[in-house]
């Protein structure tokens, strides 16, 4: 009897938590279809805010900036992170504590401190040399910095999971270093490379604080655009952009669910 009450209580908490987690997102989606300019009263269904959205050049630009930033920073981070991940594996018998501390630094640093120190540094360097003008370039640098550790750790753990004799075999068959990289390394760690790229991409798309402080006046990303729209005064247009972003996440979630299922078969 007592057991059943406990089970019911647990299920109640579970459903309550799900409601809590999804209600703010639901409200955004609902009010993006509101015909009135209100976020409190739903008048009638309309697509007006979406039409406004696609006419707004700033939003299109911000979306383009987000994509360029995410793709280019992920590619750079993938190359650098891969090298460091492999180096950490190959030379793991050496004392590389300093390297590991360095790698963990971007992860443990509070993002506000991260963003502000980059911004202050870039402004100072720009003042002295004229280089590193705040804009897409500085944002890419900052994003690569926080993506490198994740790539390195993913690649490292993939190498650790491999059979060490594989490396010996490739060497024994007189493969040149280049051939070993192209025909052995890249194919064997391909899953790690793919997941590292997608993780970097997601981290970049999702980031607000670090982008906000390293952005220039013309390099606003979508989250930065939304932020300034909120600050200037709330309009349901934000609901419409946010709904599109939530849909993207929902699609990604469905894909990962299917992927999960397949993986366990």
């Amino acid at each position, binding site marked *: 009897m007592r057991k059943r009450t406990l089970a019911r209580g647990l299920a109640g908490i579970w459903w309550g*938590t799900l409601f809590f987690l999804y209600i703010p997102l639901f409200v955004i989606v609902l009010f993006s279809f509101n015909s009135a300019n209100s976020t409190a009263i739903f008048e009638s269904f309309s697509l007006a805010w979406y039409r406004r959205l696609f006419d707004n050049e700033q939003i299109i630009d911000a979306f383009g900036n987000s994509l360029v930033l995410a793709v280019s920073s992920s590619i750079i981070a993938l190359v650098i992170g891969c090298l460091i991940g492999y180096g950490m594996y190959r030379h793991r018998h050496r004392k590389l504590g300093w390297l590991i501390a360095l790698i963990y630094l971007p992860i443990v640093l509070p993002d506000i401190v991260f963003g502000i120190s980059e911004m202050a540094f870039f402004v100072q360097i720009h003042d002295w040399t004229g280089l590193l003008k705040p804009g897409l370039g500085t944002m890419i640098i900052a994003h690569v910095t926080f993506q490198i550790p994740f790539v390195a750790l993913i690649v490292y753990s993939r190498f650790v999971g491999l059979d060490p004799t594989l490396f010996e075999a490739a060497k024994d068959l007189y493969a040149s270093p280049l051939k070993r990289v192209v025909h052995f390394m890249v194919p064997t760690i391909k899953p790690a490379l793919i997941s590292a790229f997608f993780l970097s991409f997601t981290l970049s798309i999702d980031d607000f604080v670090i982008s906000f402080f390293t952005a220039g006046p013309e390099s606003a990303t979508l989250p930065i655009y939304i932020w300034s729209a909120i600050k200037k005064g709330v309009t349901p247009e934000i609901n419409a952009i946010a709904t599109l972003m939530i849909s993207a996440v929902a699609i990604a979630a469905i894909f990962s669910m299917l992927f999960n299922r397949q993986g366990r078969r």
Partner: protein
Amino acid sequence: MSFPGAVPTARSRAMVRETRHLLFTVTPGAFWIFTFLVLPSAYLMGVAFMTNGPYGLPQMPLSLDSFERLAGVGFLGWSPGNLYTLLRSLWQTLVSTVLVVIIAYPVAYYITTCREKWRPILLLLVVVPSWTNQVIRAFGWMNLLAPGTPLSNLAESLGLVAPNMGLYPSNFAVTLGLVYNFLPFMVLPLYAAFEKLDTAQVQAAQDLYASPVRAFWHAVFPQTLPGLLAGTVLVAIPAFGMYVIPELLGGGKGMMLGNLVANQFSGSSNWPLGAAGAILMLIATFIGLFAMRRIGKRLGGGEEVVI
């Protein structure tokens, strides 16, 4: 075996090659993080010890002005504004972490009681909302808590808020936003701990006629403690330095340390003061990390608490 004065052997040449290999693979990444993170952080630390110049930019001579300002000493004598901000940050971190634990504990346990094939999907359902941008999620709560919404009207009719004020901006809204934001970070490590739970211990406790509370306290709780600690690190440290949620949901009165720091760098404020705040934040972060590691090691579950 090596002999003194030996000619360069194949072995020593191989060592040189190995070192070159290490440098080739590790240097680009180490250089990048050093140039674009260690140097900027060091620069920020330096700024904290400079004087506030025109337009808020740092200038010589070196001084401890910004630390005095941070402690509240200004032209008009001592004012507790910054101290309140610090205390509010600590309080919000504590309250939201405790609330997150209270919610996450039963949720993580509930997932382990479900059928195995459902568990990954249930976990995914908890995590998915956190994939949307945090600005959007905070905006969702702004929509829900603004004056005139059902929730605000309910709170008004219960006499919890003044008429036409709404539930946001307020400290309550910040707490809610923090709990909302960090809940998944607690559920995941707790779930991992629950999944590995040794049920034989619970059985033994029940066989020895332990009350459910005692069985939980002595057989279940210690086993989930490493997960709880890992979750606390993932929740409390970022919550303490949070910027977006207090800025959007707290208004001027709900400011936390992150906002105090950030505000000194926007417009023509005071870089040295902001940098001093950043140092304070870093000290708190490293004390938190260190304490958790110590506790984790003492419990023997050391590896799991390492981030």
